[in-house]
Every structure is written in C-alpha cells, then in structure tokens.
C-alpha cells in the first residue's frame, strides 16, 4: 500500500458563513488505494461535510483536496467516485435496473453495454430477480443494496458512503456490513464510510478516523489490525473488543461537551 494516495486532504478548513460555524478545521488525511476508512464522531463533528468536500459537493474554505492526483472538481467531472447516502435516493419512476443504469447513461454508455453491466451489478448485490421492480416495492435493506450497486456500476476508484446503513435495523445492518465487505473485496475500490456506530466502523475498516466536534477535527486514528475476510465471528474476538474500546475512549476523551443523546448514539 505504498501507492500514491487516492484522496489527499491538506489543511482543509470549512466555515459556514451562516451562523459562523467552523465545521472542519485543519484536516490532514491521506487515503491509500484499496483502503476502507471510516469517519466516526458525534453529530456536528463535520464527518458528512468532510465526505462532501472530498466529493466536491461542498467547497472547502481553505486547504486543498486531491482525488486521484487531481483537484476534487476535476475528479468529480471525471466521475472518479460513487456516492451512497443514508436514504437510498432511488428514483421512483425508474425500475431497479434503470436506477443502476443512471450513472452509465450519464457516462454515455450505449444500451447493450449498460444492460450487461447492470446485470453484473444486480448479481453482485443479489437482486437479479428484482430488475424490473420499482424502488418502493423493495425493503429498506434492498433499496440500499441497489444504491450500492448504482454507486459501483461504473467502477469508480473511490466510494463515498454517508451513513448508508444508519436507517436500517441492527440485524439488517450487520448482514449488509458483511455484504459490503465482500463487495469491496471484489471491487477493490477505496471506501470512505461515515458512521455513528463504533462497532460498524471497527468491523468494516482498515482505519477508523475519530473526529471531535466544534470545530470538527481529527481526534485520532485507530488502525484496525483484524484480518480480512472478516466474518460473524470477528465480532466475538477479544481483539475486536479492544479496538472498539480504544475508539470509544478516543471519542470520550475528545468529546467532553457531548450531549447525552449524542453519547447514546455512539454506544
């Protein structure tokens, strides 16, 4: 993993004029190719803002963002990343297959090429039987799998995920965690994963970036040395619990001004 970073953040600061909030302050972070990195922190720590800065959906006030060795703007225009949000953001008027084909249409792929790729993606997320369904006919977990398939359809080097499983129940979430890992291992893209859940972050990631709020900073980075492929048993290993504890302690030490409900969110 000595390649050039996929994402390089240097001195990134973001101030929202409205309310004069410093959402991000002096963020420095490099992501190496193929890495799975989680951003975790209480509400208001700027983790979603950071994700959007990487995706050039929000412009930083100062500092530089480099994606695939290009400016974030260039990278967005080159469609270098796919993005998944907390709600699946599927279009009701499109079938599952057409939703997955959307980025391919934007890339100007012809119909046959689109169709072949959509079929591959449907197999990948195991929704082959649902190609002609409309999104509202699927469960929340299935919708999120469609969103993941759509984000990966054009094989972006980078996958940005903003609390993708935050709205799902615990059991669905754990199953999708496993599926996401197997998809990631096959696709080989770099993943930036925003989450509220410590256990999810530790289970999935190579590294967990712990952020503290007001202003949003990196409080510390925990290297997760659990071997891949990770399985259901991984969550029962002593090393897993040690790592969960160190992430939690890092959050506590930097989060003296957390509100009680925010602490509950981090449980």
């Amino acid at each position: 993993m000595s390649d050039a970073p996929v994402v390089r953040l240097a001195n990134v600061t973001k101030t929202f004029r409205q309310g004069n909030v410093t959402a991000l302050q002096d963020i420095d972070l490099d992501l190496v190719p193929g890495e799975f990195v989680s951003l975790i922190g209480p509400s208001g720590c700027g983790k979603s803002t950071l994700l959007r800065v990487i995706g050039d959906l929000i412009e930083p006030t100062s500092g530089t963002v480099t994606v695939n060795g290009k400016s974030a703007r260039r990278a967005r225009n080159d469609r270098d990343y796919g993005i998944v949000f907390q709600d699946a953001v599927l279009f009701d008027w499109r079938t599952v297959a057409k939703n997955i084909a959307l980025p391919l249409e934007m890339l100007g792929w012809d119909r046959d090429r689109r169709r072949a790729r959509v079929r591959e993606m449907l197999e990948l997320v195991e929704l082959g039987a649902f190609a002609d369904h409309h999104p509202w006919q699927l469960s929340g977990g299935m919708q999120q799998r469609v969103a993941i398939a759509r984000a990966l359809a054009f094989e972006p080097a980078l996958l940005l995920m903003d609390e993708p499983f935050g709205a799902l129940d615990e059991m669905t979430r754990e199953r999708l965690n496993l599926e996401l890992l197997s998809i990631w291992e096959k696709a080989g893209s770099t993943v930036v994963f925003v989450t509220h859940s410590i256990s999810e972050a530790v289970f999935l990631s190579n590294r967990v970036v712990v952020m503290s709020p007001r202003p949003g900073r990196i409080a510390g980075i925990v290297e997760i040395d659990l071997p891949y492929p990770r399985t259901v048993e991984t969550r029962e290993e002593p090393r897993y619990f040690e790592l969960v504890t160190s992430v939690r302690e890092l959050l506590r030490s930097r989060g003296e001004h957390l509100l009680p409900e925010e602490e509950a969110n981090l449980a």
Partner: protein
Amino acid sequence: MSVRRAGEWLPALVVFVVVVGLWEGLVRALHVHQFLLPKPSTIVSVFWTDRHTLWPAGWYTFKEALGGFVVGSGLGMLAATVVGRFQTAGKALMPIFIAANAVPIIAFAPIFGAWFNPISPHSKMAVAGVLCFLPVLVNTLRGLQSAKPRQIELMRSYAASELQIWRRVRVPAALPFVFTSLKVASVLAMIGAIVSEYFGGALNALGVTINNAANVFQFDVAWAGILVASLLGIALYGAVVATERVVLRWSPQERSS
C-alpha cells in the same frame, strides 16, 4: 384484477341508483312541480328527444372548454418552467400566483365578453384558459421544486448539467403534481365555458341553451342540458385520468388504485 375493480365500483353504483330512484319516487309521490325539480325519467326522455340540438350544443361548448384547457394548461406549464428556471423570479412571483389563484376569475367573464366578440367562442375559451392557467402553473412549479436535495447532489456527483438534472429528475418528480392540477383544470375548463355562455354567446352553445330554456320555464330542457354538460365534463376528466394512469405507471399511488 377486473373482479376487484368491479367490487370497488359496486358501492358507488348502488348509491347512484338508490339516489336516482329516491329522486324519481319522491317527485312522483309528493307531486313536486316540474319547474322546481323534474323527474329523472323526464330529464332522460328530453335528453333523448332533444338530442339533435343538445349534443351539437354540447360539442360546441366542449370545444371551447377543450381549447381553453389545452392553451391555459400549456401556458401554465410553460410559465412554471420559465419561473422555475430562475430561482429569484420564482421567489418573487410565487406569492402573487398563489394570491391570484384565489381570485374568482369567473367574475371576469362579462369583461372577456367585451374584449373579444361576445358571440365568438374565443371569449369563452379565454375564460376557460385563464381558469386553467393558474392552478397548473402553481402546481407545476411546486412539482419542479419537489426534487429532494439529495437527488440533486447525486446528479451533481455524476457531473450532470442543469439540463440533465432537469430532464432526469425535476420533470419526472413534477409529473404527479402536474396531473393533479390537470384534473382540477379539466373541471374548471367546463365550468368556465358554460358559465361564460350564461353571459351571452352563440345560440347553438350549451350554456346559452340551458340559460334560455330556464328563462322560458322549460326546466326539463335545462336539466337535460346540464346532464349533457355533466357527461362531457366527466369525459374530459376521465381522459386526463386515463392519461395519468399511462404516464405515471411507475407511481405507487397508481399501482394501488
């Protein structure tokens, strides 16, 4: 599917038959005067015997309503597209449109008669068109703005142009709103055409026929004219609903109905 459909229609059909039956029975039993309320059977028989004057009159008025509906709704959608394209213009104009939407446009019917030739169908078309314009404009605009911020963000992540976002997100998101307003407009167009004919119009127009019949106490003819107007109004509304069913096949509401 068709069995379920029939089951859904049945209660309404029963209520309709019962109401018409009660109407017929009560008018007979209580010897209600013809000019107060004719029997449904009388109305239907006049509807049949006068069919050679009523239907051409209905068709004449229907064309006015249809013309107003098409032009008014079309301009409404066009105006919404232009206003929606420019955010600041939209913010400034939206409250005015909503206020104008509450103005009883039909009150302007005599003035429209003066602007155009009162005998010509154009003044009726104009009233119907103005009635359709505002609800379609307001709802289309609301629909075009109904796309969720995340949907727009997703499109921006694909480096989509404004035009691509428009075509792939804003317009499809607006369609349910557009059809809701078109259903309202189809009803308003018939009202506009007929009521403006009450203020004067061509002799072979339905509103004029109804009005003249009532003036000479031929209430059975007036009622038969109203029946024609109702059937044509339902036909126009039904055509819009049928189009909606086809265009919005994907919508969960359409699937369940």
